[in-house]
């Protein structure tokens, strides 16, 4: 995408204003509880249920606090400032009909829609193996090959499937995120999916939790795929069936929404101020229910 520089600046300014408005929007609309939510998950302390983020497609609407934790994205910001294309490396596969093949394309489109006048160059890679095994090493090779500004990493599924030691997973993830950041490359983590049969699996919950802890410790944005899907699972959609059963339908919905959810977390993270200041209630991990609490 190449446009006149003046147009770029104007559009960037419009984006920032529009983005700020959008960022505030969920809070403003929190008072008006959407009537479509029949059985939203209850938050501890009996706080009133949040409405879904209205900037998302209706079927993908999840409240911000259950969708992301935000942090600064310095490398992407620098690319925007230099008016050069943003190189993105998306890692991790998905599995719903039509979702996987189109996820990188959808993500690229959604990012370009959200960041008008910015050229997003998307490279997508599957990463086999466990982070606690050889996958962390292979990821380094991929990053060296692509040299992106931003890595969007769906992480945890393979380690959870192999039931690797949680601490080994967390350490390897932490070390890898640190390494990516040490080369001035931004990272957005996406935690593994929610599905009913794993809701009470303590091991699985601890994997999800350790992704969250690493994101908080290393101050990288996180897309709460687990929380978002659990939220969507609680919505009234029982009329809509799926030939493979409800969990598969939910999974497909989650994957259809994934590009939007990731984009939302990135757009809002880009609005994080450069100085030490943080947007209250945004830069720190949102107070969401932890999977292990259930």
């Amino acid at each position, binding site marked *: 995408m190449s446009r006149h520089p003046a147009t770029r600046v104007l559009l960037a300014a419009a984006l920032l204003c529009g983005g700020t408005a959008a960022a505030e929007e969920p809070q403003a609309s929190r008072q008006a509880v959407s009537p479509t939510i029949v059985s939203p998950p209850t938050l501890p302390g009996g706080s009133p249920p949040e409405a879904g983020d209205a900037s998302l497609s209706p079927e993908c609407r999840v409240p911000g606090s259950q969708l992301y934790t935000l942090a600064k994205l310095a490398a992407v910001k620098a690319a925007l400032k230099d008016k050069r294309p943003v190189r993105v490396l998306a890692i991790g*596969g998905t*599995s*719903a009909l039509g979702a996987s093949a189109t996820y990188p394309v959808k993500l690229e489109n959604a990012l370009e829609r959200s960041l008008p006048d910015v050229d997003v160059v998307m490279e997508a890679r599957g990463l086999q193996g*466990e982070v606690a095994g050889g996958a962390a090493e292979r990821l380094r090779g991929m*990053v060296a090959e692509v*040299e992106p500004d931003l890595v969007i990493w769906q992480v945890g599924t393979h380690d959870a499937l*192999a039931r690797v030691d949680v601490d080994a997973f967390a350490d390897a993830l932490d070390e890898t995120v640190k390494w990516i950041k040490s080369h001035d490359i931004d990272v957005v983590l996406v935690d593994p999916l929610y599905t009913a*049969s794993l809701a009470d699996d303590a091991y699985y919950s601890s994997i999800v939790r350790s992704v969250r802890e690493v994101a908080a410790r290393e101050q990288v944005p996180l897309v709460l795929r687990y929380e978002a899907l659990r939220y969507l699972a609680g919505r009234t959609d029982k009329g809509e069936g799926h030939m493979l059963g409800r969990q598969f339908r939910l999974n497909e919905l989650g994957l259809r929404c994934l590009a939007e959810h990731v984009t939302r977390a990135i757009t809002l993270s880009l609005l994080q101020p450069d100085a030490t200041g943080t947007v209250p209630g945004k830069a720190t991990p949102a107070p969401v229910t932890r999977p292990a609490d259930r």
Partner: protein
Amino acid sequence: MREPNAIDFWRGLALVTIFVNHVPGNTFERYTYSQYGISDAAELFVFLAGWSIGIATRGRDGVPEPRLKTVLRLFSRTIEVYRAQLTVMVLALAMIAGTALVLDNPLILEWHNAGTFFADPIQSIVGVALLSHQLGFFNILPLYVVLLGAAPLFVLLARDSRTMAMLLSASIYLLSLIEEWNLPSWPGQGDWFFDPFCWQLLLVLGFVLHDWNRESDTLRRWSRRLFPAGVVIVVVGVVLSVLEIRPDPLAVPEPRLLFTFEKSYLTPARLVHFLGVLLAFGPVYPMIAPRIGPVVRYLARLGRNSLAVFSMGSVMSLAGQLLRFWTGGGLLVDVIVVGSGVFGLGFTAWFVEWRSRKPGQRA
């Protein structure tokens, strides 16, 4: 059936190691030699495949078989391996999908690269047939198909000049490292897990070294002299892998693949380590073989039937992974998984040999 020998023994050991390493997270994984070096069982497996081609394409008297026969033999083997890959892929995908359905758990569909297949079966089934869509842990046979397909070129060239064959192979290897040539994955982006342009070097090396070893004892003399170097390399490998010291791929000079430890490209560090392992462990077989008879017989039987054993091993290791996930793992489950795997590999090898006997000879 041929008597146990060093090649079959080491190949059998590589097969068992690959099986254990393909059930990630299991307790026994940390006791395999792959955890204590830069290279692993994959290098051994491909090198020995090259060595075996050397054996297979000559008569017992050492006279090379006619060229056309060699080409047809390798072509036939390529088809066999391709067929095995298609079979294990279908079984693996069915096992993953079946487990997801039974456990009502879509997470399982995201098993290493399987998600792409289930998300996009129309493109992926073409990719499976073209070998460009590979599941994680199911990447060796596609490499093997390409290597065997290209083998006649090197084998026939080596009949005229081993040096030429080796030079051609090494040039392709170096150029691929510098230019980062690899075959593409499709559907999706990215490349093959095992880059055939790089890994062909080991197959050709295995073949050429066998040929050279047959003609003169220079190789044997030099490997004895270089034994201490091999031991040093192995020790350095142990230290580097235990302390997790490896180069940062973003900090090394260009061309970076000459300096990193990446498995996909059989980078020089891996190659040197593997050659060190060969030098250090080459003399081991004659020393231990008389003492561990049953183990030698078991491993050599696996090695004699490597394709069937490898294929069954792939399927069984996947079953082991799914079982570990379903049950939550633990030492007992690991003992059951690895124990039944070791038995299953042995049974597969025995069964293949039983089936290949003439009907009257079957016990």
